[in-house]
């Protein structure tokens, strides 16, 4: 049962009236399309939507038998691990540095600003820096003897999308780590200091273990972010290429559903993606304790 007030109003019809706008929007724009995806995933349809045949789980079988699709699952996972790893390490480092500074507001302001920048704009800016034709960083790398062309080299393309996505994501991780550190009682840290622990020892022996709930929470949130919110970065920087090196699951749905008009297959992919979200959300709600008290 969902908690509510113990003292309540007794009107019978009013609550339904109040719920109507939200429920109507949810049913039309969320539940209906989602159920369409579920139904569609069991049918095969030609590109003009004229004929439609029931094919059972055949769309799923086909999708999962397609090595390029399986590759996109691994690409998404690799991408998520890279972004989560990079942003959490950097954010943890920044937060540990900023935590013990009295006037850290100026640093915090700069670190969180990229959160406000649109993923697409981030993609445009990093594209500009690394563009083989005009980028100053690609120019710099070339003058140091490294050929940079992310439109040809898959590893470089992957690195670039990780870089652009991480640049944005450090903000979120930083705020959570800093908030986590600020609720650790000073007495714990002080007693360690009296025992002669260096700042680095204090960090690894006290702060970091106490932050493990935050770390777990951030891991899940970063996975959700990388899986679902990095489409603009990829679309702008690499269009999934080269050789599908940066084609994540969401990117493939876009490409199959809108450019190749394969609706059955893209619906099956949507359903698989839904399974991933449900998995993440369940993890987030079942196992994550957000309010940690020491």
């Amino acid at each position, binding site marked *: 049962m969902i*908690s509510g007030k113990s*003292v309540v109003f007794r009107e019978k019809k009013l609550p339904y009236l109040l719920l109507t706008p939200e429920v109507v929007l*949810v049913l039309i724009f*969320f539940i209906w*399309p989602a159920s369409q995806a579920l139904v569609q995933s069991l049918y095969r349809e030609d590109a003009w939507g004229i004929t439609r045949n029931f094919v059972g789980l055949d769309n799923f079988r086909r999708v999962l038998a397609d090595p390029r699709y399986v590759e996109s699952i691994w690409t998404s996972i690799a991408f998520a691990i890279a972004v989560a790893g990079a942003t959490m390490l950097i954010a943890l480092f920044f937060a540990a540095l900023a935590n013990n500074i009295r006037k850290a507001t100026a640093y915090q302001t700069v670190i*969180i600003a990229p959160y406000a920048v649109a993923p697409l*704009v981030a993609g445009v800016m990093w594209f500009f820096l690394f563009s083989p034709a005009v980028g100053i960083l690609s120019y710099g790398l070339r003058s140091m003897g490294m050929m940079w062309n992310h439109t040809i080299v898959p590893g470089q393309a992957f690195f670039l999308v990780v870089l652009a996505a991480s640049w944005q994501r450090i903000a979120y991780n930083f705020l959570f780590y800093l908030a986590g550190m600020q609720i650790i009682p000073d007495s714990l840290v002080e007693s360690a200091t009296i025992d002669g622990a260096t700042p680095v020892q*204090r960090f690894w022996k006290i702060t970091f273990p106490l932050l493990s709930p935050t770390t777990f929470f951030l891991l899940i949130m970063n996975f959700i972010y990388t899986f679902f919110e990095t489409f603009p970065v990829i679309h702008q920087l690499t269009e999934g290429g080269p050789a599908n090196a940066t084609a994540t699951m969401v990117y493939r749905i876009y490409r199959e559903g809108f450019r190749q008009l394969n609706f059955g297959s893209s619906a099956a992919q949507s359903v698989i993606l839904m399974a991933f979200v449900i998995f993440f959300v369940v993890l987030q709600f079942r196992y994550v304790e957000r309010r940690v008290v020491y």
Partner: protein
Amino acid sequence: MVTDSTPTRIFRHACLLIGCLIIIFPVYVAFVASSLPLADIFARPMQLAPGGEVFNNYYQALFVGGRGLGGARAIGALVMLRNSLIMSVGIVVSKIAVSLLSTFAIVFFKFPGRSFFFWLIFITLMLPVEVRIVPTYRLVSDLGMINSYPGLILPLAVSATATFLFKQYFMTMPDQLIEAAKIDGAGPMRFFRSILLPMSRTPMATLVVIQFVYGWNQYLWPLLATTDRAYYTLMIGLSRMLVVADHQADWHVVMAIAILAMIPTIILVLAMQKQFVRGLTEVDK
């Protein structure tokens, strides 16, 4: 707070300073490019000091547009700014309004189906637009809402996060408030207007920041829901300008639009930093 030794303190500041400079670097380069004549952007390497074309470039960005936006009928960023603003304000207002009403119902009333409705709203958390993109596109297209503001706004206009935030906030309000309202003979809507609404300013401010950023930065949905230039948001206009090969793009205009596109959200987040941080780290999402 444990006091650091001087070398430790210097180390902290030095690292943070370098980190901040690295974070600012792409934005700074974008700004420099937006202040240079196009020819200078193609110089290898591009200079890193701002040039003197700020006025011309931003004027062209706002009112004229550039390559990739459709030749003579090109639109300037002013149109895109307006579209982005309408879309994000629409999303913010809708999310806050519908969540406020539904959370009011769920928290302050007892009625059959209360849990069901809560879970119905909860489920939207598992259906981000990326997951339902193809059927949503078909639906909006069948409704004739491609290239319209409702088409841009409605599929994104619901938020489980807002419901959670309001619910969490309402639950901390003392029961005496309702009792007092009842004794005074105030009905539920009177209570909603005179007590709940004014008391919900804090979570509302938080939601305004977070959801405005969310709406402003949307890309995948407006990419599909707009084919007419008159409805391009800033993000769509930007990406259309870069469909041309990168050595042909009007980089000076692109970068001016990129800077224009990030100013509103950065100002909002920094001006309301406290609400933003609290909203992000304290919502039981």
